[in-house]
């Protein structure tokens, strides 16, 4: 299989990050891991956006991924990180396959609100689960990776490496997916469902597959967050978290598979600095940054890296 330019760059950047991480301070490694995990969930939001759907409930899958890691470690005695991530993907896929039957009937604000409702119902269930610590959540067990047990101080770097590998695999896949028949079919549905049907394509089926894949990708993001942060709690399913994902998706734009990663990193850095420099006004700074991006870069930060004719107007 011949690799194209984007793929080479993605692999190159991943390797560069992996090398740089060896010399980076621990906090940067951690922030990077969280940013990559967040970007994966955002990637799911972007997948839906490309099909014209905006989810205010992607936190549902983020949370399922996180809790699968937490519960799998605690009650099933699974410690291998990859198995835990896989468990999250399986659980999430099953849930998404059921919800998808319903969700693909909805568009626009109704899709947004219904996805929000389901996410909040999971939030409610977890809040009611006193045995799981309710809103306090619980800690994730110490994990291993393919038989390797990260020692003291290695966990953060190991988590980053795992996140990098998973994110790279997903990014390579999605880079192809976005240009594939189904990827284009998603965009076609955003543009015109009637024509899609008249082409002989079932828009429901396309949306369904896309929805389930987006959920699975989001679950990986949630699992990685849980492995890195070492704690899960129901906030992961709360609607403001989902709103944050949409925020980052819009910040980055839907133009390229790398956009969510850059946007998530910028978002994290802006927020960290804002929290530090103006602990009483960081929300305002975030809001203003968002407005400026929407005003001057309507297609997101990624539009700075492309020079498509007429795209900026």
């Amino acid at each position, binding site marked *: 299989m011949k690799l194209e330019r984007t793929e080479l760059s993605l692999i190159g950047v991943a390797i560069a990050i992996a090398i740089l991480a060896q010399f980076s301070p621990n906090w940067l490694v951690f922030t990077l891991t969280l940013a990559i995990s967040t970007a994966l969930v955002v990637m799911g939001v972007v997948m839906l956006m490309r099909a014209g759907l905006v989810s205010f409930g992607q936190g549902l899958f983020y949370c399922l991924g996180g809790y699968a890691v937490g519960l799998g470690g605690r009650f099933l005695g699974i410690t291998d990180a990859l198995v835990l991530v896989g468990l999250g993907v399986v659980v999430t896929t099953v849930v998404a396959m059921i919800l998808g039957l319903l969700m693909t009937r909805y568009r626009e604000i109704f899709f947004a609100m219904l996805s929000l409702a389901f996410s909040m119902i999971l939030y409610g269930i977890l809040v009611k689960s006193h045995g799981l610590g309710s809103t306090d959540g619980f800690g994730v067990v110490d994990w291993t990776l393919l038989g390797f047990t990260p020692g003291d101080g290695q966990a953060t770097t190991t988590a980053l490496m795992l996140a990098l590998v998973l994110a790279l695999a997903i990014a390579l896949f999605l880079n192809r997916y976005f240009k594939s*028949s189904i990827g284009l*079919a998603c965009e076609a549905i955003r543009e015109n469902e*009637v024509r899609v049907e008249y082409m002989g394509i079932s828009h429901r089926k396309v949306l369904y597959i896309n929805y389930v894949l987006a959920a699975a990708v989001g679950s990986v993001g949630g699992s990685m967050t849980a492995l890195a942060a070492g704690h899960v709690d129901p906030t992961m399913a709360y609607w403001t978290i989902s709103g944050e994902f949409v925020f980052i998706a819009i910040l980055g734009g839907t133009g390229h598979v790398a956009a969510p990663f850059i946007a998530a990193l910028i978002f994290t850095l802006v927020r960290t600095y804002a929290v530090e420099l103006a602990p009483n006004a960081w929300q305002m700074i975030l809001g203003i940054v968002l407005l400026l991006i929407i005003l001057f870069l309507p297609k997101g930060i990624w539009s700075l890296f492309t020079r498509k004719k007429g795209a900026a107007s």
Partner: protein
Amino acid sequence: MTEILRTEGLSRYFGAVTAAEDINVTISEGEIVGVIGANGAGKTTFINMVTGYLPPSQGTIAFDGSPIKGMGPRKLMRKGLARSFQIPQLFLELPVIDNLAIALSAAEHRQFQMIRPVRTPERIKAADEILEQMNINHYRDEMVTAMPQGARKLLDIAIAMLGNPRMLLLDEPTSGVSMEEKYTLMDTVMEAVRQRGLTVLFVEHDMEIVQRYVSRILAFASGEVIKDGPVDEVLADAKVQELVTGKHHRTPEKEGDA
């Protein structure tokens, strides 16, 4: 000649409004049929019912000998029934080539492929061919938004033909196109149709175009087919002249004579 489409007692009501009433039409393979009628006469309703966009209130439709009532556009497309639209239904924010590539991948039943790019060399070649045939190849890499109306109409029809249909329903292919362009457009389309040997049914307001390209006319008024027959016979009919064409074979139409 074998029969390809037959409707019996086809009707459609919107509440108390009758959009189509008791339409009985039989069309044979290879026929080029014109559909005329004033605005609101039921032409588009008829096409929408035949192509599965609107479920009929009553009646039956058979395509190629088998009943197709209740099937949606997708299934009918797979059976060989394609259509174009009065307002071209295109993917405005996608390049022209992708509009065609998606249609081609669907025609190959490969619309769910996830890894292979939609723009395969074969599809690009096929797209280039039809673009050339339609005379819009210079828009190949443009967004649809950059195309003028006439080119969009052609692209819309091209997409319909990519599904390898046996019958094509064209809904006002020349509406919104300037007088000078109309004939070029229709020549291009009809040439492509002839090459593929398609059965065509098209809605048209311009009687000169109708006379020039079709062999048979269905005249609609108030949701009913008031006359069905060879061109001259229908256009000479008094009722058709009164309700559809006006005395001088001209329609009281918005476009007028540019």
